[in-house]
């Protein structure tokens, strides 16, 4: 049995209490929510916090709230709850696409959206999803709340704007009329980390032209959005040639590394292939008038 190094444990029931515990125990305290990243690392003794602050009882962080123009999702909302949410699926089908392929049901029953974003694993799916949906992240600290956009929040692998003594409390998704979104991942086996994945969101105007576009990649060495790929889409009507060009640019923007999941050229190929696929689906979901093959 793998066992972690000795640590102490505290359970918070409110954000204020969690913040107080983080402050009291300082640098060596870590929050645990779903625990599917932290606990395996602790068992392998790669992570050795002195204190683990459990926030699973912080009920205020667990909600999905639809408001005019936006959807607010509490940081402690489980993957399974996102997947089970009708409103999430209706407004942001990309979230359901991603959640269906995040790990397995056991992990989805425990893992949280806040934990995923805060862990910032380079192969983590929801960061890309939140990027393309232009979500904002609410961070609470002793001095109150601040709201940061994804490009500011996500700073790179395992690095975010959330400081040691702060907590991610909420993710806010802007709702846009005429938006379609999609996510697709290649994995060696269900539950494996992504070999590569891509996400896209398109907004079409009444005439069927793309007014907004966002393309993101997972596990492909691209931080933030593939801006050049998105730029060629805006103002155009969706079609296969356009998507091919956007996909080519997304692949060019990727910087994958070789590992057990595949060589660089394969992963770059996937950046291209998967971008095309998610653009087709996103356009179809946005109600594209022109039939897009494979949508």
């Amino acid at each position, binding site marked *: *049995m*793998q*066992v972690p*190094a*000795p640590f102490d444990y505290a359970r918070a029931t409110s954000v204020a209490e969690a913040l107080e515990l983080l402050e009291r125990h300082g640098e060596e305290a870590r929050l645990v929510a779903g625990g599917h990243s932290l606990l395996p690392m602790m068992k*392998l*003794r790669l992570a050795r916090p002195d204190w683990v602050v459990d926030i699973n009882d912080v009920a205020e962080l667990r909600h999905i709230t639809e408001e005019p123009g936006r959807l607010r999702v509490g940081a402690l909302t489980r993957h399974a709850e996102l997947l089970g949410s009708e409103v999430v699926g209706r407004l942001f089908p990309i979230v359901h696409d991603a959640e269906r392929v995040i790990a*397995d049901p056991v992990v989805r029953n425990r893992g949280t959206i806040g934990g995923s974003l805060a862990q910032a694993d380079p192969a983590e799916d929801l960061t890309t999803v939140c990027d393309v949906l232009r979500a904002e992240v609410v961070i609470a600290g002793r001095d109150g709340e601040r709201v940061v956009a994804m490009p500011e929040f996500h700073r790179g692998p395992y690095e975010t704007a959330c400081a040691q003594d702060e907590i991610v409390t909420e993710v806010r998704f802007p709702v846009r009329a005429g938006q379609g979104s999609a996510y697709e991942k*290649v994995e*060696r*086996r*269900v*539950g*494996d*980390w992504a*070999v590569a994945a891509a996400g896209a969101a398109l907004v079409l105007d009444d005439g069927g032209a793309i007014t907004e576009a966002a393309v993101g990649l997972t596990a492909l060495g691209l931080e933030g959005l593939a801006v050049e790929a998105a730029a060629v889409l805006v103002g155009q009507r969706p079609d296969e040639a356009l998507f091919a060009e956007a996909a080519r640019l997304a692949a060019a923007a990727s910087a994958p590394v070789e590992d*057990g*999941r*595949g*060589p660089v050229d*394969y*992963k770059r*190929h*996937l950046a291209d*292939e*998967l971008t095309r*696929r998610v653009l087709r689906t996103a356009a179809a979901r946005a109600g594209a008038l022109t039939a897009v093959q494979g949508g």
Partner: protein
Amino acid sequence: MTAVQERSPMPQEREANPAMDAPDRPIGYGRVQRKEDPRFVRGKGRYLDDIVLPGMLHGAILRSPMAHARIVSIDTTEALAHPKVHAVVTGKDLEGLNLAWAPTLSADVQAVLATDKVRFQGQEVAFVVAEDRYSARDALELIDVEYEDLPPVVDVRRALDADAPVIRDDLEGRTDNHIFDWEAGDAAETEVVFARADVVVSEEVVYPRVHPAPMETCGAIADYEPVEGRLTLYETSQAPHAHRTLFAMVAGIPEHKIRVVSPDIGGGFGNKVGIYPGYILAVVGSIVTGKPVKWVEDRSENLMSTSFARDYIMRGEVAATREGKILAVRTKVLADHGAFNATAQPTKYPAGFFSIFTGSYDLQAAHCSVTGVYTNKAPGGVAYACSFRVTEAVYLVERMVDVLAAELGMDPAELRLRNFIKPEQFPYKNKTGWEYDSGDYEPALRMAMEQIGYDELRREQAEKRGRGELMGIGVSFFTETVGAGPRKHMDIVGLGMADGAEVRVHPTGKAVVRLSVQTQGQGHETTFAQILAEELGIPPEDVDVVHGDTDQTPFGLGTYGSRSTPVSGGAVALAARKVKDKARLIAAAMLETRPEDLEWEKGRWSVKGDPSAGKTMAEIALGAHGTVELPEGVDGNLDAEVTYDPPNLTFPFGAYICVVDVDPGTGKVHVRRFVAVDDCGTRINPMIVEGQIHGGLADGVGMALMEFIGFDEQGNCLGGSFMDYLIPTAMEVPDWETGYTVTPSPHHPIGAKGIGESATVGSPPAVVNAVVDALAPFGIRHMDMPCTPARVWEAMQGRPTPPI
């Protein structure tokens, strides 16, 4: 969906349970629910880690982070100072006990704890015994080991290079990494056939290193009682008796003072055949501390240090006529055995039964040669339901037959049908010395083709190819070789490969059967009760099956190589027949008639011509233990014991067809359908047979698509967790479609052949053949496992690469 074809003179299977209709009617074979399942499904199984002994301490092993390094020093001072630590054992301490090295199952030695060098990442370096498992792990970090790096031998193809570092400098006079050369068949005769053949195909076929990865990892609890000098050893062992004998030899504790208990086992697949350093260290820990010591490895330890499987690089060649008559096969194999030669197979067979690579085909000649080498990797090699390397053999020949089919432009099923050994040729002597006991191959393949709709699938495939869609149909036909001995040819470290069974019928007619083989989840408590029930005509629920305790069971070599039913099953049947014969004598005495005037109807001896005059087994049992005046020479019990020495192995076979779809954009393989038609001779409990097949098919999909223990250039194991070593889930496997034929073994007491490993052996080539078939439009004739999306995509780019 199950298809059936019986061509046997004996009705070998009853689908329904007749007892359901007539509760008073005794039954034997059939779909009886497993007797062990009530405790398993309630979470009441008793596995090693469930056992807690009074005062028990916990052990943990410090392992080498390096693949090859000299140990400069080990400082245990700080670990010993840990308040909960009772002992820290190093290789030096073991040297004092003459226990630093232990014999392997392949005439080599392996380090229990490293003394001079570490030779693979994960090798055992020190052992801590503490009050709880947490403290034991904490204390591992307090041991300071200084290593001096040595260059590792990772690439097996370079292991025999003149400048390769010598791994086994502990062996006197060692100047290279060569372990053995072994061959079978006739090289010269084979060369003659190859020289005049119309067509020769050749391919390098790699069966990469994989791991059995049982759900339960390995562990032991040693309880040494110093006053009487008795050792009780609880172990995750597939072979408790063999382990006891070896422990007596290694540890110097007399065999009669050792009791090995193998409790419920959470999967073995060959991983729990060998004796691992952890078992020996638990014993040392108990002797040193005077308390019971439990050691249970974690998942990474299991994957990184215990017996792996396969790791064969095979150059395969097939010679054939232009018309598709296969004439001969030959192969040269480079076998990676890791740092110590610790494979578990019969002594005379350093490459196991690999020479069965002639497959199911009637050939003119065959030759194989195998070279085994050391590398800086974990030892092992014969595991994962391989039937002593039949799985490598079947994979090679079935892959190569498909390569030949591609060369000839012939349908792979048709090519197989043309070359099968014919039913009238059995018993069939192949060109490498095996005598196949029985077989009727064509009906099995035809049944599989019919069940899957082979011709229709080929039409669909042609249509899809026209649209650029990639669909593949893979055929594999295997002949298994299971149930070792006979003991005159087969032994493991000198112990003949026979197995025993002891039957006792109690006075009330209930019975107990004690076995030397050891279940790991495959339902022995049910199957063996059914064998006895069939023979004695008593209900299986009246039979208790005892196994896994050397104090309670007869000697035998244990469960691996699908040998439980072929060997101990034979023993049970023969012991039951002894009981039945004795019951006849006693019944005759009770009925005051002559034994030859009695006839047997299931469960009862009755007077010929007067069926109303008879005695049931229960009545006879009471008579045997009661006051009936027994005939001379008949003692007062209904017991019998048999050690069964099989006259030959048994040769189950099967026809498997797999259908895959490959995503042309991503290389991802989806297994759409899988039909498995198996023939294991007599089917005792068809439900258990199907369960064994389902499990093995999942193994095959796993190996074909994802399972792989790789290493980086420094010899770091890249498959040391389930995040890296992928095993398939329900999402990666289809609903299995099974069928069967029944061709009993002519030499086996009940005609049974063994089924435990058939599907693991037979399914990988079906899946890979299907993938390669899907990639035919790219001109691909071969790609190696695992067929991960990336590797399939590389093959589609025209550069399939070996995994090692």
